[in-house]
């Protein structure tokens, strides 16, 4: 679907403050996968995803979308923008329309979608983010930060892109809303077969939703693979300033204390079952603590 070939991007190229934000990236994103990107602050995640819909032009290397080099001459880059939707960090800062309807319709109108179809797409998008239909006539500025975030996400999702990129979509949302939103994106991925790319600082989100994860460090891809495999490399991750899911840490500590706990516990559900198993083991009166 999206392919990076030796991509390097340098900020402030040709000046004395120039800096490689991403270096020599080779990456293949398959259609229909749920990919997570993790990495420390400043590791180049945002820079990487901004290449995927042609907002940044690689200093060196090529980016292919659906097999086509998007920076070749005469290629219409706006087509890529409709195919690959990008929800920015803090998308609520991009609003400008007088009412929610026009705000969400902005991308659709730019794409030349007929007005008759727009309405149903907007309703669908509102359902997606869990907002009521009666807000369409209010001003987008009359909402709370989290609600604005949802409106902004709706404006991208309404375009029904084949690939949707989410740059830390849940930062600053309440846990209930973020959970709901991520589940919706998982549905979008599963049921519609669309590609979802999630930039996240929450290892819990990554392990629960992603099929594959890539780990960025200082502008390079240091690891990639299934989340469960990646999180077994606790030390390497710590070295890159990253953590493993909280629950896993509990079980790793238990193992250090001498309990025969498993080292691959990532979710609350798994933790529950493991605790029951451990409890049953201790029933015989033996203590595992040395």
């Amino acid at each position, binding site marked *: 679907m999206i392919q990076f070939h030796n991509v390097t991007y340098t900020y*402030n190229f040709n*000046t004395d403050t120039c800096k490689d934000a991403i270096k020599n990236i080779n990456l293949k994103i398959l259609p229909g996968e749920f990919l997570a990107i993790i990495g420390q602050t400043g590791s180049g995640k945002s820079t990487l995803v*901004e290449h995927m*819909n042609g*907002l940044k032009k690689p200093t060196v290397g090529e980016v292919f979308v659906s097999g086509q080099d998007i920076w070749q001459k005469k290629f219409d880059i*706006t087509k890529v*923008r*409709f195919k690959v*939707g*990008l929800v*920015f960090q803090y*998308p609520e*800062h*991009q*609003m*400008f329309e007088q009412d929610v309807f026009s705000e969400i319709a*902005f*991308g659709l109108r*730019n*794409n030349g979608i007929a007005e008759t179809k727009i309405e149903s797409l907007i309703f669908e998008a509102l359902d997606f983010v869990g907002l009521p239909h009666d807000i369409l006539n209010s001003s987008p*500025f009359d909402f709370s930060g989290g609600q604005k975030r949802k409106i902004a996400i709706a*404006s*991208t999702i309404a*375009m029904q892109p084949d690939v949707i990129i989410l740059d830390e979509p849940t930062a600053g949302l309440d846990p209930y809303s973020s959970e709901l939103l991520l589940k919706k994106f998982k549905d979008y991925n599963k049921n519609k077969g669309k590609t979802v790319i999630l930039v996240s600082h929450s290892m819990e989100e990554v392990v629960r939703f992603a099929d594959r994860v890539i780990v960025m460090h200082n502008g390079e891809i240091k690891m990639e693979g299934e989340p469960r495999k990646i999180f077994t490399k606790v030390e390497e991750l710590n070295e890159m300033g990253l953590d493993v899911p909280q629950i896993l840490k509990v079980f790793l500590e238990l193992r250090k204390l001498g309990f025969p706990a498993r080292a691959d516990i990532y979710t609350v559900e798994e933790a529950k079952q493991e605790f029951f198993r451990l409890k049953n083991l201790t029933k015989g009166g033996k203590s595992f603590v040395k």
Partner: protein
Amino acid sequence: MLNNMMVGQFFAADSIIHKLDPRIKLLLTFVYTLLMFFIESMFIFTFNILAIIMVYKLARVPLKILIKSIKRMLPILLISAGINIFLIQGETVFKFLGINITKQGLCMVSTMIVRIICLISGMLLLLYTTSPAELVAAIEKILKPLKIFKVSPEEIAIMFSIALHFVPVLLLEAERIMNAQRARGAKFDSKHLKEKLKAYITIVIPLLISTSNRANDLAIAMESRCYHGGENRTRFKILHYSAYDLYALLISLLYVLLLLIFNKLDFFKIVM
């Protein structure tokens, strides 16, 4: 793209010129600007350019960045030169597009261009060698007398410095919003003027909103740290005159006199 417009002119270096008191530099730049309007002879301008190059060397500011800035002004220079050259009457040298190009016209336009270049290099030297903070402190001191008219120089100074600080912040913000709208298909590179204008409005509104929010936040943050200008406020950067300032004043005074005297002597005009 917006990076090219960055206004951060200050060029940090360790030189005598950087160490001069900003008030002195401001004053000297002002005098120098006036001086440039009194000079008419090409010879003296040439002399002045040599002097400027020497001062740039003294300030350890590479001439390369000065030339870059002048190049950016070139279109404006050429347009005004182009207009002037057709308008001045006198001895015809040659005809161009049916319009007389006169000796006086050529003379006047070349003097004008050199004068503007001299002016720009002088003012830029001030910006290259004086940090915005110093500049603001100097402006504040110079505006002190305005207190009689109930104008608070501290408030003007703080407004200046906030504005200076926020220019790069706002440029980054504008670029971010531009990208966000682009991702939703806004057509900034459209060939239709109307579409293009529409696309730019989608930046202006969010930018205005975030600017006013930011201003509000800043005001609250300042107030909650008990900011108040004026009375009893001590400052981080205290301006002191040094011996160098005196030397600079004397040397400049000599220089001004020298140029003015040369300018009076018709001898140099004949040479030209």
